[in-house]
């Protein structure tokens, strides 16, 4: 019964749109009648819901001190090469790998991340993606050093590398992000008159820019409405404000500004109404903007039914990872916050009973030089990322953890590791879990994916596609 109804919807959608190539992998539900819309709304809380949360660490997280080798031999090399940035061996939090490291190494987490250690070792819901970074094609350090590699545009530059992580297309145009292109494919899962499925808690970003779907930016305090229009005179002014916004604006910037303002007013109404019924008891860390962002994300996930949403993509971010100086203290604070906030968010999804349908992943400009500049480290390349949720095959390090050696096989200078997994492969693994399975659609989201060997790095338990 259930299956046949879904098939009906799918066929109806295909017929209505005549876009069987999209509909073959993505079940377009826009062209549905009111009765069916109601049925789909009811499904939103069921197994069909999926949410991706991108947590961007702006500035370039020094992942070399987040995932650290702790076996005596490798740690000795680490300590020597890192110099003043080396963390004490005994302080590192051991990771118990499900699959042993092929080179026999063992690893620990930064000492201030006990919550994530527990999620990795005990819950097995946290995975590490090792040495992932921007690539145009598979590249070796030798190719980099002898100048034969095709390289991402402006390696080691913050703005460029942030954008390339977010476009998932290192040599492509920067006019859309992979989250935005993913949303373009899947937005029809949501009710047509709801807020955008791309929701940013920290302003504009490239990740969520789609060709059709535009991002909706909400503050950590939730939506905010126009205020100060009480009384008779207030009503007069409010009408005039609306009239001014709705004038036919010849000027492109004026009409865009009016459009954004009108959208904000509408979305504020929708989201305020939806959030009025939310309850969330999981404690979140105090005095952390990241914590506030993740808490609001959890709340918006909680009201997905009221919003009529079966697909959401969130963007949240934290700054300050550009640790050229005073790195040890700065990163102590940042990674404490990261570990506590990620854990709180995960616990909140457990409370909401949706932890297998929400996946949080980290991204950052780049990692940092293994060699120190005295008090910190400089811009580098391949980095380690974290993936968290009940759909994650946790407790393992995926990809290849680099050889710790200045001048070693992955070093292109001062301990800048050439990535052994591309951002494209990392992102494709997430996109596939999110519901993109045909090679055509995957290439729409990540246009260079065919250049790389591994469109599924393996850290996600891929959900069965809806039937």
């Amino acid at each position, binding site marked *: 019964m259930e299956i046949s109804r879904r098939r009906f919807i799918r066929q109806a959608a295909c017929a209505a749109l005549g876009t069987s190539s999209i509909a073959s992998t993505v079940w377009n539900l826009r062209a549905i009648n009111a009765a069916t819309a109601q049925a789909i709304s009811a499904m939103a809380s069921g197994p069909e819901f999926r949410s991706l949360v991108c947590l961007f660490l702006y500035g370039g997280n020094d992942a070399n001190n987040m995932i650290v080798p702790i076996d005596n031999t490798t740690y000795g090399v680490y300590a020597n090469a890192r110099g003043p940035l080396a963390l004490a061996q005994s302080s590192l939090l051991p990771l118990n790998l499900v699959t042993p490291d092929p080179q026999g190494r063992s690893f620990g987490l930064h000492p201030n991340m006990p919550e994530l250690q527990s999620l990795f070792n005990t819950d097995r819901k946290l995975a590490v993606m090792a040495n992932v970074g921007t690539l145009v094609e598979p590249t070796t350090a030798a190719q980099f050093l002898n100048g034969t590699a095709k390289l991402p545009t402006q390696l080691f530059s913050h703005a460029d590398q942030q954008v390339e992580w977010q476009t998932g297309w290192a040599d492509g145009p920067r006019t859309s992000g992979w989250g935005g292109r993913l949303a373009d494919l899947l937005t029809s899962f949501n009710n047509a008159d709801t807020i955008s499925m791309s929701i940013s808690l920290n302003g504009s970003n490239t990740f969520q820019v789609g060709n059709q779907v535009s991002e909706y930016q909400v503050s950590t305090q939730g939506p*905010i409405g126009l205020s100060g229009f009480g009384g008779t005179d207030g009503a007069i002014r409010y009408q005039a404000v609306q009239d001014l916004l709705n004038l036919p604006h010849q000027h492109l910037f004026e009409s865009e500004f009016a459009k954004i303002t009108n959208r904000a007013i509408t979305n504020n109404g929708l989201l305020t109404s939806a959030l009025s019924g939310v309850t969330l008891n999981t404690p979140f860390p105090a005095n952390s903007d990241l914590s506030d962002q993740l808490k609001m994300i959890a709340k918006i996930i909680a009201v997905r039914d009221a919003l009529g949403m079966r697909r959401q993509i969130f963007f949240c971010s934290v700054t300050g990872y550009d640790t050229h100086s005073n790195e040890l203290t700065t990163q102590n604070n940042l990674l404490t916050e990261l570990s506590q906030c990620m854990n709180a968010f995960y616990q909140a999804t457990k409370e909401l009973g949706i932890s297998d349908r929400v996946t949080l992943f980290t991204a950052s400009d780049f990692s940092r030089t293994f060699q120190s500049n005295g008090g910190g480290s400089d811009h580098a390349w391949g980095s380690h990322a974290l993936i968290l949720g009940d759909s994650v095959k946790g407790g393992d390090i995926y990809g290849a953890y680099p050889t710790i050696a200045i001048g070693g096989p992955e070093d292109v200078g001062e301990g800048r590791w050439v990535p052994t997994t591309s951002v494209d492969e990392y992102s494709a693994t997430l996109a596939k879990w999110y519901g993109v399975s045909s090679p055509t659609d995957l290439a729409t989201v990540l246009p260079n994916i065919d250049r790389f060997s591994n469109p599924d790095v393996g850290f996600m338990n891929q959900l069965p596609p809806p039937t």
Partner: protein
Amino acid sequence: MSAPDQLRQRVAFALSEIMVISANGNSMFQHPEAMATYWDVLTQDAFGNFRQLLEDVTLNPGMGDFLDMVHNDKPNPKRNTEPNENYAREIMQLFTIGLYQLNQDGSQQLDSGGQPISTYDQDVVEGYSHVFTGWYWYQTGTPTWNSAPADYRHPMLAFPDHHDTGAKTLLNGVTLPAGQSQAQDLQGGLDLIFNHPNVGPFIAQRLIQRLVTSNPSPGYISRVAGVFANNGGGVRGDLKAVVQAILLDPEARNLTGSDSYGHEREPLIRLANLYRAFNASASSGKFVVNNSTFNFGQAALYAPSVFNFFSPFYSQPGAIQSGGLVAPEFQITTDTTVITSANKMRSAVYQQPNANNPDALVLNLSAQTQLASNPAALVDSLNPLLMSGQMSSNMRSIVINAVTQIPAANTLERAQTAVHLIVTSPEFVIEK
């Protein structure tokens, strides 16, 4: 806000969004003197020579702290450390020349394969990171390289023992010879940047964007860059001449009739425009603007990073992007800030003197109140003051209609209503 040299202040603010320093998320939050000293540099040099500005910014202790030139040490093989690359990279990428070789009109030069040509590579960044070694906090008495308290008031102090004296590969393949003094390296390194042909178009494009329009024509950029290269008296980098060229250019003076000319007034500038237009004052004599980041998405000298509040290349997805245009200020024009900034502008308009808050900034609307009995005259008086006389007739009708509905006896409220509706309107927000 009330200083007589408003253009200098305005240009300094524009420069603060190019040569960015910020107290956001670092220890300078507790050192307002750091930001004040940097502001002094920008205001002093705003109409001076760019070469002087470049050196003053480079040796400013707040900048030293922000981009890690302070305590930047020569290589130390024992500790396996290399000089810090932060300032070396950003002075080129963000402050002066950018990533790609430019023509004088701001367009990118292309190689034979049609690809843009990089201005520098990692070796040049490392070269400059060595140039910028050996600087630390200003101190009196016998200076010490370690553990001196931060001095944000005086330029950084040279420590020759901590300066790398090796040869340094810099821009355009030029190598500074080994054995130069710290001062020689600094002068040589900064001269090379200053004389790079990119600086003129780079600075011209950014200052035009901040002051006039988001999408200047190539000709406009070229004319201003030409003045940067030579002020007419053979001087390169004369910022006074550059600012003059920007503001007096035909493209800035004459309405082009284009439906995309101009730029969004930055939210903080909108508030400054309001306070300036009506001589706002507080009984404390201060100009306190609280919660600026929350309300406007920006606060002076408080950007989230060295990349400023917005990128000069930001394009709003949709009609602006598909039109091939950029709109930098739209990067902070979010679903949140369009509302919070409108709310803040509204509360600023209606703010009354408050005995409990001596910092409350109150507009002087006496002239407008006197016109309140004639709504059309009231609105027409505000048109040149706030909108350079560009208010559309549709907009004028809406505002007059609203003011007319406010009881005639409430003269101040009528004046406030007119100002409120204008300063939150799309036509005001987009400066043309």
